């Protein structure tokens, strides 16, 4: 196959991914890494680096409006992002040091785990936090945000902050090692574990991701794992696809799209696992 067909193929597939990702409410990176590593000839190192940069640029592009509209909290995100950004460096270094077969197996297991989380995890619009914990209070993890759908201000506070630090440490390792982005884990950790209202959890998750992925992205960049021929068409494809997806959001059957994404993740995760096992 001629070299120039690959960026075109990447653009086409990532454009479709961008649409589906928005409709299913997941990040582009979580679809990119399993699908492209399973069906394209690129080495996993380059795919993970590209996935990380896709997740990073998507998060960076969305953050300004989320911050201005009060749907992302800096004071909630900063301590968690700090922990995640340290461990994402460890994840990236591990991912580049371990044999490809082992990383491939771990990727397959992680993707199947993500599919399970997406299938089973519930969500709470406004979780009840009866008593905030001392660490959360000390770190200023509380506030008020305006919910346009409810047309009123919603006050929030958090609990289980120490457990959340451990969760974000683990999420950082996975984000750095696999370049998956981490919205699939950030949102349940903020919403179900810490008791952050869902909308604020989604917005703050993007902000945390933008910091966590930045530190891991430097590791891949500095070690020669960033190939513009893979990164740029994918990035443009996902971003344009996401714009189309946002327009289709009103008419698309969300539950059907979610089932399709789950199926794709199961197939891609299974393929990554088999590839890693040499089957």
């Amino acid at each position, binding site marked *: 196959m001629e070299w120039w067909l690959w960026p075109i193929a990447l653009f086409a597939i990532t454009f479709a991914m961008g649409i589906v990702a928005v409709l299913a409410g997941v990040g582009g990176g979580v679809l990119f890494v399993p699908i492209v590593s399973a069906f394209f000839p690129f080495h996993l190192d380059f795919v993970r680096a590209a996935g990380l940069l896709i997740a990073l640029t998507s998060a960076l592009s969305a953050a*300004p409006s989320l911050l201005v509209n009060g749907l992302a909290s800096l004071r909630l995100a900063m301590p968690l992002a700090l922990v995640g950004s340290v461990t994402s460096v460890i994840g990236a270094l591990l991912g580049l040091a371990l044999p490809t077969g082992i990383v491939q197996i771990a990727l397959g297991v992680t993707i199947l785990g993500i599919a399970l989380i997406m299938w089973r995890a519930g969500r709470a619009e406004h979780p009840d936090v009866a008593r905030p914990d001392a660490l959360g209070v000390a*770190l200023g993890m509380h506030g008020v945000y305006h919910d346009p759908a409810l047309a009123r201000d919603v006050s929030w506070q958090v609990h289980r902050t120490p457990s959340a630090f451990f969760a974000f440490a683990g999420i950082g390792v996975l984000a750095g090692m696999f370049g998956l982005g981490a919205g699939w884990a950030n949102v349940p950790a903020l919403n179900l574990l810490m008791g952050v209202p869902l909308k604020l959890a989604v917005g703050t998750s993007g902000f945390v991701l933008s910091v966590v992925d930045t530190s891991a*992205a430097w*590791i891949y960049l500095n070690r020669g794992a960033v190939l*513009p021929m893979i990164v740029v068409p994918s990035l*443009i494809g996902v971003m344009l696809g996401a714009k189309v997806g946002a327009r289709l959001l009103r008419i698309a059957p969300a539950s059907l799209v979610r089932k399709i994404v789950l199926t794709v993740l199961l197939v891609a995760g299974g393929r990554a696992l088999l590839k890693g096992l040499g089957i």
Partner: protein
Amino acid sequence: MEHRIYARWLDIGTRIGAALLVASFAIYVFGWLDPHVPHADLVRLWTLPADHYVAATGAPTGWAWLQHLHKGDYLNFLGVAVFTTITIVCYARIVPALPRLHAALALIQIAVLLAAALS
């Protein structure tokens, strides 16, 4: 207050990064600047692990890409570097607007990101 400052600087940074990335990729893919690794060779080389790719092509690691900006492929790194640097700039910009504890967290975060960038 700090939300607005952060958002304004991030918005500017992402716009600059995206413009640089699209322009530099056009220069690269249409061959207006010779790449370090010829396009046709990529098909064989991108199947290698990153360290083997670096060894096979003599690709720069660390910040050495700055010396290869006259090459089409490494020109793209300018846009990528804007995306990976903008968070450091935004954090530095909001430090004066933060209470003492969060300013300290922001400074530690900047140190972590700089350590990753210089690793």
